[in-house]
């Protein structure tokens, strides 16, 4: 029997590519752009485009767990999912799994 849940995970990058504070944009096979973030020893995956006006968040800043869009400064705590500052919409996130030095993402975004 095929493990459907297992099949859902797609490889995103090598774990070694992301240290704390790093941002790495990847494109999933379904065309989604995902931003991988190094936060407190973990990898967090969020939608790569700002839910306000679609700015690539890879151009924003990541300080600790706070991601800031460079245009109108919407902010999110990507660990807790909290909206900060002027943010009016949540930032969709993705499930992340690490296995054998590889980061996998499940390509169904959910609101943080």
């Amino acid at each position, binding site marked *: 029997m095929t493990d459907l849940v297992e099949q859902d995970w797609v490889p995103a990058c090598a774990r070694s590519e992301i240290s704390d504070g790093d941002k790495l944009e990847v494109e999933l096979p379904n065309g989604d752009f995902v931003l991988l973030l190094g936060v407190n020893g973990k990898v967090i995956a969020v939608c790569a485009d700002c839910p*306000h006006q679609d*700015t690539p968040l890879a151009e924003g800043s990541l300080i600790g767990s706070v991601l800031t869009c460079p245009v109108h400064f919407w902010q999110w705590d990507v660990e807790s999912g909290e909206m900060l500052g002027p943010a009016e919409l949540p930032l969709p996130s993705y499930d992340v799994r690490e296995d054998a030095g590889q980061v996998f993402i499940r390509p169904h975004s959910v609101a943080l």
Partner: protein
Amino acid sequence: MNKIVVTDRTGESQRFDASDKMRILHAGLLAGVGLPHECGTGTCGMCKAKLETGEIADLWPEAPGRRSCRRPGEVLLCQSAAVNDVSLSLRSAFSPPLRPACERVKGRLTLEETLTDDVALFRCTLERPLVYEAGQFALVGLPDLSGPRAWSMIDYTPGAAHFDFLLRRAPGGGASAIVFDTSDELDVELIAPLGQAIFDPDEGRPFVAIAGGSGIAGMLAILARAEAEGPVNAGTSHIVFGLRDPDSAYLLDRLDAAVSQMNGALRVTVAFSDAPASALLQQAHANLIFTEGLAHDVAAPIVEQAKHGDVKPVYFVAGPPAMVDATLQHLLTVLNVAAEDVRYDRFG
């Protein structure tokens, strides 16, 4: 004329006409459509849209803003002209239409005053006056140059039929070569006003304006309006003017006079990044505070103090992109200034 239909992510559609000579963003803004944008000149990437049907000509395939076009069919509206009827979709929502509305007007550009080897004041006489706000900019099309350039109005004279600009020569720059190296008057075409980094004295708030080099341009309009109309009793406003060294300094007389005219309501700090001010320079501009350092570092204690004043200031930041980004980062993440209090223009 080509028919343009733009649909945003909420499903709302707006229609306007655009000739094959006109950039779609500019045609839409002139028609009063709230198309998302920032620079209007190909660098920021905010005007991207997906081409659904029809054909466009990409007027500047190398535009830096194209980095935000990562999906098939995405184009920059400020660098696209319609070849035939076109429909486009936005992954964002329409913005509110521009207020004041932007218009297209012809003008004639002349050199007013050379300030340094690389910086000069220009006057653009307009065929009719335009209404604008202090802190806004114009898109200026020059003869035989592809794409307009964004230049900030440096004065606040909305009833007058001219704009004044402060321009810095960009090494190898297309517009720079034309405006600095020709002595003739130039016929130009403007789309104005644009820009959200506006100062409105009716808000009753002081300002902290942090400028890198020619980023002082828009701050001068803000200053002109503050000198003329207040804000009355709102507390002290500040300008931090970042420059490389005393030899490349300009406008110090103008700023010195403004401090004296505003009678304690304005403090101006000039921050030299590479060399200190001489005693002579300080004596000649006794109303200015001279210091060494980068504009955002020098601004930090000023911001800390202003933040705790009775009335929350508005923060303005303008200059080269790297300077603006460093300053915004510092304001928002180190000094914990609220994002809604910050207005900025990246000059590039």
